[in-house]
């Protein structure tokens, strides 16, 4: 079993990487709350958080502190274990996805050893992501059900059915991409998008614009973000599935949402916008040392992710919320047929044009 023949150095390297990624995602998620408020403020011509620190930069810390120190309430008639399990599962699944994302190219040190900026390069990376995403539903469902509250239950059922419905279209839209790449490994998909211009546009976005569009819309729905934030629709369901939660359990739910936002942006960038690839990267690789080059790559990747997140936020503060039936109709009657169509066209093109 190759999988289990692990040496200590390998374990240390991986633990280090995991820690960095976890802490990084948590930190980024923290500042995403700030970013969200700032974007909202800009869009609404306000200033936004400005009291804590310069530009309100310390605001996330203040929020976090507040959440930590609030009283923890577990409703009397709730199912206790599941009530706790809910936010934990949400957080867990949010963090797990980042394991297969390649954050940068391999670093070859002088002594020949290779450091991989990816926790696990498994051959079925995309399926792994889908598996984890499909588990993400449980956090919401269990939390909502365990609260023993009508609104929470309704909200969680909405969330779950929304997630299941859009997972289908998401998977179908990716099938077309996978038909072109011929691999499920994220690393290989990124490497196939090497550079930017290689006689043709290498990024999958240019090969699969329709697939990208469907994937993006589904990502909105999976993230429960506006205009698909029906589970949290205040006017209908009070606060949504986390209505009964308080203190850090609520914090977990909110955090998980932002981590999801970050990770799914990373996945979108990886799949469609070349991951850490950028134009003229070969020239840069020639000029800089491997470590510096890798750092540049990671920075480029993060920049792309931040752009993507900003896009998500702009959309959130621009578009109004869908109605539930509209949401379902869009998912089942538009996106899935469209994704199937895209799949057939791609297949035909591969069969007859590209061979």
């Amino acid at each position, binding site marked *: *079993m*190759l*999988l*289990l023949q*692990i040496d200590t150095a390998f374990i240390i390297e991986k633990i280090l990487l995991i820690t960095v990624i976890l802490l990084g995602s948590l930190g980024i998620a923290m500042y995403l709350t700030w970013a969200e408020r700032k974007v909202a403020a800009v869009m609404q011509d306000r200033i936004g958080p400005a009291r804590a620190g310069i530009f309100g930069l310390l605001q996330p810390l203040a929020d976090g502190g507040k959440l930590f120190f609030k009283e923890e309430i577990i409703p009397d008639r709730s*199912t206790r274990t*599941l009530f706790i*399990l809910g936010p934990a599962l949400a957080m867990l699944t949010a963090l797990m996805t980042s394991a297969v994302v390649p954050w940068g190219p391999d670093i070859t040190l002088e002594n020949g050893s290779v450091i991989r900026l990816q926790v696990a390069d*498994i*051959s*079925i990376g995309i*399926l*792994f992501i*889908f*598996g984890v*995403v*499909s*588990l993400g*539903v*449980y956090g919401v*469902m*269990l939390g909502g*059900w365990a609260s023993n509250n009508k609104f929470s*239950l309704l909200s*969680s*059922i909405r969330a*779950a*059915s929304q997630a*299941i419905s859009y*997972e289908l279209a998401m998977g179908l839209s990716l099938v077309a991409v996978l038909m072109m790449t011929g691999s*499920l490994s994220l690393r290989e998909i990124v490497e196939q998008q090497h550079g930017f211009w290689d006689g043709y546009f290498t990024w999958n976005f240019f090969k699969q614009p329709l697939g990208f569009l469907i994937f993006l819309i589904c990502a909105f729905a999976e993230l429960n973000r506006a205009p698909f934030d029906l589970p949290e629709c205040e006017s209908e369901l009070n606060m949504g599935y986390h209505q009964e939660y308080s203190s850090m359990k609520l914090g977990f739910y909110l955090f998980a949402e932002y981590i999801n936002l970050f990770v799914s942006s990373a996945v979108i960038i990886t799949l469609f916008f070349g991951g850490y690839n950028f134009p003229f990267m070969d020239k840069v690789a020639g000029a800089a040392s491997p470590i510096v080059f890798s750092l540049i790559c990671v920075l480029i990747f993060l920049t792309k992710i931040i752009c993507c997140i900003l896009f998500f936020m702009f959309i959130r503060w621009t578009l109004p919320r869908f109605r539930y039936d509209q949401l379902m109709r869009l998912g089942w009657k538009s996106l899935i047929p469209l994704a199937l169509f895209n799949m057939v066209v791609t297949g035909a093109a591969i069969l007859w044009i590209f061979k």
Partner: protein
Amino acid sequence: MSTYEILFWFLTVMALSCALGVILSRNPVNSVLFLIATFFAISGHYVLMNAQFLAIVNIIVYAGAIMVLFLFVIMLMNLNADTEPQKNRLVQFAGVISGGALFLVVLAALRTSSVNMLEQSPTDIGLIKNLGKTLFTQFVLPFEISSVLFLSAMIGAVVIGKKEEAVSEVKQ
């Protein structure tokens, strides 16, 4: 004990205890969660046997889709432990006895068979590429037929699940 064996025994114990949890817990939601855990243990076994693809598909299909449906139904019906009527002791006892008898009989039958060791060496038959090749060459007809089966099941479920009011409206 090698890592492999530790993992094996861990997963085995987990699978069996969670399976028992499925049939013993009174709350259906707990049963569902135990079953999901059992599936995870089984997927773990798949990984141990180099069937990564099946492992992940098992999780996506069973844990991610089928069990969500179960949970859905249970939540919609709001079934709780106290709403489920219990069978009388005698019937439960008979169930355990007969299940156990089957177990013992087959166990006794298999006990004497010769020991076959599973190869420890990594194989790539469980990789998606090989599976895909087998599936789309040797088994392409069953594959198509199963897709038809699936489609008809889907239609059947939709037809069954339709509200009766709608049907009567059509009749009028």
